[in-house]
């Protein structure tokens, strides 16, 4: 016996599907449009622009991937930019002090340890003192701002550097390949932990309803700390990838990353309040859309000083589209 659906039911189910996936559709449509514009306006420098997009987006993608765990819980971390700055400076100092590949390895390991410590601090203090996570990350932001200035003051210069040949392949194609491999590896790892382990399940649960999750027997304190530490790992990797790009760092390195991460995740369809609709793909889709948009506006001839205004306008439109209509708040 076959069941037949009438056209009205079909239409209703289609509308229901649209309603359910409006954020995903908006996010992927945004990426598709920016990609099409990229191909149309890339012109004679299409290949160069593609490399630029890859190199610019790589550190942001990696950090945003880690941020998925934090944002899934409905939390955020505003200290990430200053952390990136300090980590880059520390890595350069250690590499210059130790020298060679050993210096690079030691520098990265030192930064990784510090990032894990900061992640644990961020998660634990917020829970133990019952503070909103943004408050502890604000503390870390001010702490790292001070540390960044002090470290640079100690060098007596505005910028310190290491040869990029120590950090990445000199050949551009090889460098781009390394970037792709790092992005793929981090994406696979984050996807695995998010979809197939308790970490992803519990962080989304905390974002959806922390009380219910706790009453289900989940140690939410522990998983919050682990989520922040996972974010820390990605911040350390992202800082290294950013350093690969310029080989230098200074007082302003990392500025704006916290806001960029938030914008990228929202553009990618991540609900700011976290919960079960949080997805790893938000980091990839959002960051690529954001970076491609900048490139598109540039190649389309928009005044470079006006690009931020255009991006702000597009951002607010997306927020309005994806905003939950009843409560007038961001989607959950």
């Amino acid at each position, binding site marked *: 016996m076959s069941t037949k659906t009438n056209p009205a039911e079909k239409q209703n189910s289609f509308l229901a599907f649209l309603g359910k996936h409006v954020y995903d559709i908006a996010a992927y449509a945004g990426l598709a449009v920016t990609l099409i514009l990229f191909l149309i306006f890339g012109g004679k*420098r299409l290949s160069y622009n593609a490399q630029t997009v890859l190199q610019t987006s790589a550190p942001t993608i990696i950090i945003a991937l880690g941020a998925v765990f934090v944002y899934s819980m409905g939390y955020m971390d505003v200290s990430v930019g200053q952390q990136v700055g300090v980590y880059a400076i520390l890595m350069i100092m250690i590499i210059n002090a130790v020298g060679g590949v050993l210096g690079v390895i030691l520098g990265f390991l030192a930064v990784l340890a510090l990032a894990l410590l900061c992640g644990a601090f961020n998660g634990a203090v917020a829970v133990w003192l019952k503070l909103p996570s943004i408050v502890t990350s604000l503390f870390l932001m001010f702490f790292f701002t001070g540390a960044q200035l002090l470290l640079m003051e100690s060098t007596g210069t*505005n910028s310190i550097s290491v040869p990029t040949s120590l950090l990445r392949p000199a050949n551009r194609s090889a460098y781009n390949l390394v970037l792709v491999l790092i992005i793929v590896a981090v994406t696979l790892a984050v996807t695995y932990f998010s979809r197939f382990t308790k970490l992803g399940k519990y962080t989304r649960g905390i974002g959806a309803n922390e009380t219910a999750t706790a009453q289900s027997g989940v140690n939410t304190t522990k998983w919050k700390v682990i989520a922040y530490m996972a974010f820390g790992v990605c911040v350390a990797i992202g800082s290294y990838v950013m350093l690969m790009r*310029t080989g230098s760092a200074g007082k302003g390195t990392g*500025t704006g990353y916290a806001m960029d991460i938030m914008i990228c995740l929202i553009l990618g369809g991540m609900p700011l309040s976290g919960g079960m609709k949080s997805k790893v793909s938000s980091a990839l889709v959002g960051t690529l859309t954001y970076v491609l948009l900048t490139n598109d506006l*540039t190649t389309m001839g928009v005044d470079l000083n006006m690009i931020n205004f255009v991006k702000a306008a597009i951002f607010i439109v997306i927020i309005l589209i994806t905003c939950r209509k009843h409560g007038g708040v961001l989607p959950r």
Partner: protein
Amino acid sequence: MKQFTKSLVALMLVFVMALGCMSVASAEPKHAKIGVAFYQDTGYAVTATKAYLESLSDALNVEFVYAVLTQTDESANLSTIQNLISANVDGIICTMDLGTNSIIEECEMAGVYLAGYLCDYDTSYTQNYDRVFKSEYFLGTATDGQNPDDTTIGTTMFNSLLEYNARAEKPLTHVSMAIFPVWAFPSQMTGAQQFVEAVEEYNKTAETPITVDPLDEEVDVLMFSPMDTTYFAKHPGIEGIISFAAGTSFVYPVMVQAGVDKDIKLFTTGFEGGEENNFGTKGTQTFQQNMVSAVESVTYPLVLILNKINGVDFPDMPEAAERISTSQFCINSDEDLDVFVHSIYYTGNAADAMFTPDQVLNMTAFGNPDATYAGLRDILAHMTIEDIAK
């Protein structure tokens, strides 16, 4: 036969005209797109530079796109340069030496020429000379005044002080100084030492010697922010401040705040607007000297980039890129100020520029086969405040 001759003459005329058109076309500069990355997006120098460049666009067949760099973030600066390259520029005029290693690598990859303006590129010069100055894509820079190897600003400041003392009822006998950090402007430290030496030499024979407070690392080195309010407590009894750093932005507001702007005279680099109300014999008479880099100095990087784009070099073009000192206007008196307010720097009007578009075209290797690199350097090194009136 007559008809045939007429036809032949007509054909020859057409041929000659066509040849003429072709030769005119070949003399026409290639269309170029140049990115200009400023250190900030407002201010007299930025407005005037944009006006000057735009006035040259038709004669040199060039269009300009503008961007703003950060003073502290190499990665952001690299992104700005990448955006300019994505916008299909053929050359970039850059006003900051931050992240230059990666920027020059980017330019080399994209085949885009880079040259500097209002920047001595000292970090690159001292730490990465081979990587930056010997790159075929880095063409040189016009510094903001003197480059560190060619500093005379200390002597200029001393002469301005003497000139003031000669006309003042109460000459200044006790002054202090302010500079930007050495890593940013090494020439200012050199200038400060030069100033102290000039005063010491003067004091050997002077009836009324001048006292210069030694530089105090804590308060005299301005970190691109207003000077510390303890400056005046650290320098008790001063009658004048010699600010090698931009005094209008970072010294004068603190003087006003401390209520000493009527008692202490300020000699400073830069001109941000508003000084004219309190300059010389006007208003509070705080400002007694301002030094301003000639906006027309941007001609140096522009000409070098356009030469490359047009595939013609000066016969005496140096092998490695150079940094050249550029002219500074020294406003020492009411009369000087009256002249200065007619400069493009002050008016933002390209009609007030020292060079017309044709004159600039004449400085290029593709517009004038006799043009030389030495000639270009010479012209830009000898602009004086007297030339403004011409």
